[in-house]
């Protein structure tokens, strides 16, 4: 899932400066699942903002709402109040939600309440660890199912660097060395030849080197067949 975490409050205060009426909008997708951007978090952030405004003697009214997903236009129909009635909508969806909502409501100031960080699995209660970096060129088949892009802090593709120590990474002694994990896994699978093989240079166009990425499923688009 996509993990996002709430921005520092000072940044949020800065964004909302001068707003009299604000809607904190949660998203029922990934950010609900990672417990940072669901209806409850919207409720609590609204509560926090109301408390802060009251303490500062500012007249700011902060409401909250949440919709199923902010990255789908149909779900915006389920909003209880029109976004245009607010000076700003503070979205606590991931960046996709914030950006998409902003596009859907051109006259509404849609602000990001979150920093979108990574694609994660929920490895334990309260812990979401990165498992994928969306590089667009999945190589898990050759790396024993352990992603070198996500799990190696240097995203190396040809093996461990000299910074591996007792299974951990030089960057953070809490963090496992991704390449050692790959090595162990391949050994376990009796596929160490995959480690020995030289990997081709990465093509960063699939990652972020080629501008905006989009998935187009021709069979589902509304354009007539053969248009392209």
């Amino acid at each position, binding site marked *: 899932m996509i993990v996002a975490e709430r921005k520092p409050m000072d940044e949020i205060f800065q964004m909302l400066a001068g707003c009299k009426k604000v809607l904190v909008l949660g998203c029922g997708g990934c950010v609900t699942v990672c417990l940072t951007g669901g209806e409850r978090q919207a409720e609590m952030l609204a509560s926090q903002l109301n408390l802060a405004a009251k303490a500062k003697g500012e007249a700011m009214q902060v409401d909250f709402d949440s919709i199923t997903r902010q990255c789908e236009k149909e779900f915006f129909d389920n909003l209880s109040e029109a976004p245009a009635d607010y000076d700003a909508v503070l979205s606590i969806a991931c960046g996709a939600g914030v950006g998409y909502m902003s596009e859907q409501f051109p006259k509404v100031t849609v602000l990001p309440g979150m920093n979108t960080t990574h694609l994660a699995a929920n490895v334990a209660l309260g812990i979401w660890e990165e498992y994928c970096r969306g590089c667009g060129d999945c190589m898990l088949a050759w790396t024993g199912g352990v992603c070198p892009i996500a799990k190696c802090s240097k995203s190396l593709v*040809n093996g*461990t660097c*000299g*910074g*591996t120590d007792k299974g951990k990474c*030089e960057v953070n002694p809490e963090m496992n060395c991704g390449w*050692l994990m790959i*090595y162990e896994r391949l050994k376990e699978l009796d596929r160490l030849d995959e480690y020995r093989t*030289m990997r081709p240079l*990465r093509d960063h166009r699939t990652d972020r080197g080629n501008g905006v990425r989009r998935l187009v499923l021709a069979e589902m688009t509304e354009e007539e067949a053969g248009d392209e």
Partner: protein
Amino acid sequence: MSNEPVSNLQRDLDSGEFVVTAEIGPPKGTNIAPVIHEAEEFLKGKVSAVNVTDIQTAVMRGSSMVGAKLLFDAGIEPVLQMVTRDRNRLALQSDLLAAHIFGIRNVLCLTGDHVTMGDHPQAMPVYDLDSVSLLDAMCKLEAGTDLGADMKGKANELDGVPTFFKGCCVTPCADEVDPQVIKLEKKVEAGAQFVQTQAVYEPKVFETFMKKVEHIKVPILVGIVMLKTAGMAKYMNRGVPGVVVPDAIIQRMTDCEKPDREKVSIEICGELVSTMKDMCQGAHLMTLGWDHCVPGIIQAAGLA
């Protein structure tokens, strides 16, 4: 490719003699002259080549290119260290061409410590290439093309083709050495012609490692990092991956009087080289600024 050596280092290693290299690091700032002077005074004529570190430990400083160029101009053969952390494939290839133009032939390919280890932790870590693909890129340049290709997929041709003596690193005392060995195999397959290792303080472990890499037919120079104090030794145990300083060595550093430290340190380095010289093809002395100790170590190792 011709088998003619492209550098003195290559020639020395080819000759089968025990080769010694040393290392300098450009300063943070423009005041590089003292470093070069010291190299001239203590290293010139004593060692086969001198490595110039590339933004070592991710702490910003003068480039390895400038250090290598100045050494070359001073008549000392440089080994240009190149890390893949800071430059993408365009910049790395470009710098390789520049190095050749400057007369630099020895290049040591490294991945490089992560930016978060250094003094600009916010910097973008690049790692577009890794040490293996950098070696591969050098081979391609030597073959007259770069890593790119035209619309038809035909590799871009170079106008003027460089030659290099290509090196790489390995950590012989890593707790998990097998993946290191495989990586070394890959580096050699990608074109590595010599190896300078991470610091070694355990000759026995090194011996085991050397047996494991017997099949790899490239010269290996054992890395020796000078210990300046017992505290530094302990720090290395704690903070430098794949380096183990045995207690006995730490004890020797602890036991000696402060004025004797340098002497003891030289002795230790000399003993280490002397113990391991029959296991490998050379030693790479990393004195961390104490270039003046290099002659002493060579002497203590019985190489002079």
